[in-house]
């Protein structure tokens, strides 16, 4: 069972439309990935370029490697109409379970032991974001943006003749 699972893991990750392979860039080549390379699939594996992971020299704590980051495109705030910044991609960390946050019982100040809880990095494209996460040696998963379908709209639609009983009484 264990072996089977190991063999199957990379497949799902390559094939699944919305999950990317867990990149453990700083590890030596993981057994999972090596199997993936030899298993025939109809998905062409991404060419792996050698990355010098920043964490080797940046001095970032190694715990960071065990925390997943999400790569996603933040949706537009529905409170507002403006679509600016809507094309950007963002990386942020999942919160820490347990000691991530607490409130001062007297003053209500929020404190956190998680130095990454406020970290948000913005990128122009998904590739940039993924590349950055790889360089940092972070586990990441990509959330694909949703497809918008706004039909063509026309002011004159308000005045279209309808032959049957009206289903709505239009107003301003």
């Amino acid at each position: 069972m264990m072996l089977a699972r190991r063999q199957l893991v990379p497949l799902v990750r390559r094939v699944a439309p919305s999950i990317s392979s867990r990149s453990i860039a700083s590890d030596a080549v993981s057994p999972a990935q090596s199997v993936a390379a030899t298993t025939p699939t109809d998905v062409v594996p991404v060419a792996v370029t050698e990355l010098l992971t920043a964490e080797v020299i940046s001095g970032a704590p190694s715990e960071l490697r065990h925390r997943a980051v999400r790569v996603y495109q933040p949706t537009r705030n529905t409170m507002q109409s403006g679509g600016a910044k809507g094309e950007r991609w963002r990386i942020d960390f999942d919160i820490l379970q347990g000691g991530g946050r607490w409130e001062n019982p007297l003053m209500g100040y929020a404190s956190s032991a998680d130095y990454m809880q406020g970290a948000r990095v913005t990128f122009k494209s998904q590739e940039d974001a993924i590349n950055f996460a790889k360089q940092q040696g972070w586990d990441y998963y990509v959330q694909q943006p949703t497809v918008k379908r706004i039909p063509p709209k026309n002011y004159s639609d308000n005045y279209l003749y309808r032959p049957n009983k009206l289903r709505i009484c239009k107003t301003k």
Partner: protein
Amino acid sequence: MLRIVASASRPSSVSLLSVAHRRNLSSTSARQADITLTVDGKEVTVPQGSALIQACEAAGSPIPRFCYHDRLAIAGNCRMCLVEVARSPKPVASCAAPAMPGAVVFTNTPLVHEAREGVMEFLLSNHPLDCPICDQGGECDLQDQSIRYGSDRTRFHEIAGKRAVSNKDLGPIVKTSMNRCIQCTRCVRFANEVAGVEDLGTTGRGNDLQIGMYVEKMMDSELSGNVIDLCPVGALTSKPYAMQARPWELKTTESVDVLDALGSNIRVDSRGVQVMRVQPRTNDNVNEEWISDKTRYAYDGLRFQRLTTPLIKGPDNRFVTASWPDALAAIAAGLNQTGAKGNEIKAIAGHLADTETLVVLKDLINRLGSDNLASDLEGKYGNAPPVHGIDVRSNYSFNSTIAGVESADAILLVGTNPRHEAAVLNSRIRKSWLHTDLVVGMVGTRADTTYGFEHLGEDAKALEKFLSGKVKGEFAERWAQAKRPLIMVGSSMAEHADGEAVFGMLARYVAATGERIVREDWNGFNVLQRVASRPALYETGFVPSRAATSTTPKFIFLLNADEVDPASIPADAFVVYQGHHGDRGAALADVCLPGCAYTEKSSTWVNTEGRSQLGRAAVPPPGAAREDWKIVRALSEVLGVDLPYEDLVGVRDRMWAISPSLVRWDGLEGTSLEVAKAGLGSLMSNFYQTDVVSRASVTMAQCTRAFVTREKTSLEGLGKEPLQAHA
């Protein structure tokens, strides 16, 4: 093409999934031709019939607007979107003007600026200087646009001051401050078109125009919270959120709603350890841009009545706080003491159980030698395999997809009231009903949907009569001719004495109609689930075996199960409750294990379509509460059961081995035609022996009746999400 359309990037699978993408989902009639025009010197091609503002957007020229909204009809009354069009003597309101081939449009000229400045000056002339005390501050369209187009002082010095308008009472959710209203009428159009509340409107004229109901009335809609989002100023704000936080203090987390089975996409805004509000996230495949009021306002339930530490019931029947090791040891001791073996070990999964935990719990229970994996379905139905079976996904899923509802031309509702079971889906039906010739028929208790329907009867007999073609009427006629007929069966039918009969009847009908209802490009047989955890329960096979049904349990593990009938739990059984609220389930327990609510864990949720989506933790759980799957995993260690995973990745690998679609987040995996037919076949064969008429009782209608009474309490809180079918 519109830019937004071109940004489709997800590779869709080639099966039924892609059908949903192929279909023309626009609610207006299809207009094929594209036209080309020039916006700010950039050529852009848009579908014919687009508004000029859409063309400008597509060209990447943002147009300020107040009244125009992508998902509402065009009103053209704020005039903020003025642009300059060559050979036009005056600036043109780009929302109300059609995009014409060859037009040359300028959105950034002195004329445009001056025109917009003029509009803004008039808008501000009566707008109070409330920004410092206004809840919209920081995410206000008027505020933002006045930075660019507003003047820093006024030229109106009326002694009597600005226009004053009385505030309206729109109910417990929407706070009004009508002085701030700029009469964009977005709320009126939303209420009229989307929510189906035709009581909101504009009264008076000119300077006296105001939004309201004219008569004293509240906005009676389960989608009313969305007008808060729509309002471009602070006239309509959220009552529960009033004066609670500023948008720039909030941390936003994109997650998934679990209070119904639609899996609406939400954004959880939190500050510190508190969830401050819940906002919708646009996803045209699921919830468009709307969420129900329950989704939006149940969050305050997350603060109260929480389980924060493990509890063990002492000898005096009072709970005593305990440490995690003690609590887990107490469970192991309890299991030993009761001597539960095999199917006497029972797990009951509740409404808010997440998929990861279900998988881990199922593995644990299975390895303990039991198949007694019940759920808190109504009455005895949770203790038996569901009547629709779980073998084939299409037997319990919403196969037409939520977006696909819009392409149906006749809908038959069976024992369901989508308005209460899936409010956002209901708005889709209304949208389609308004814009197309859709006809709706209903079998079940007559309910106030927001669209017209033909009531065919209340019980299984009425359904049988309709299916056998003995009913005459407009709906029957149109149903017979429908190209895309859609049957929507309420999940409460699986919790009803007539359930077997109804599912059998429908399966036989679907099979008898050949290619009409289930075919390669259309699967019109749908089960509308109303509880977030059920699709995942069925997907993972979390159902009791037939043998387990008759076993008296000695050890019961309640996973978020608050709707369970206390009478069904034997007095001498050892009960463990794992969940986040100290509600009915916890009261029954000998040991309580504090878990996470949906805003506190990153877990997978499967919606009624079978779409798995990844929720994300926004805030940490209170006290000693832990992620649910970890609790079960830790328990397995104490019970000496070896589970083959240690981390979340491992659990998800296991989920993949159970059903790959569980880890294909956001994607939708359909059921192939032959398998769907095999599923229908199994439905039929089970019920060939069933005498439909003798089984048919008049009580089927109670399913929807209960929802109407429940509606009143639906906002009371998360912990007691009372989604019972019938009393």
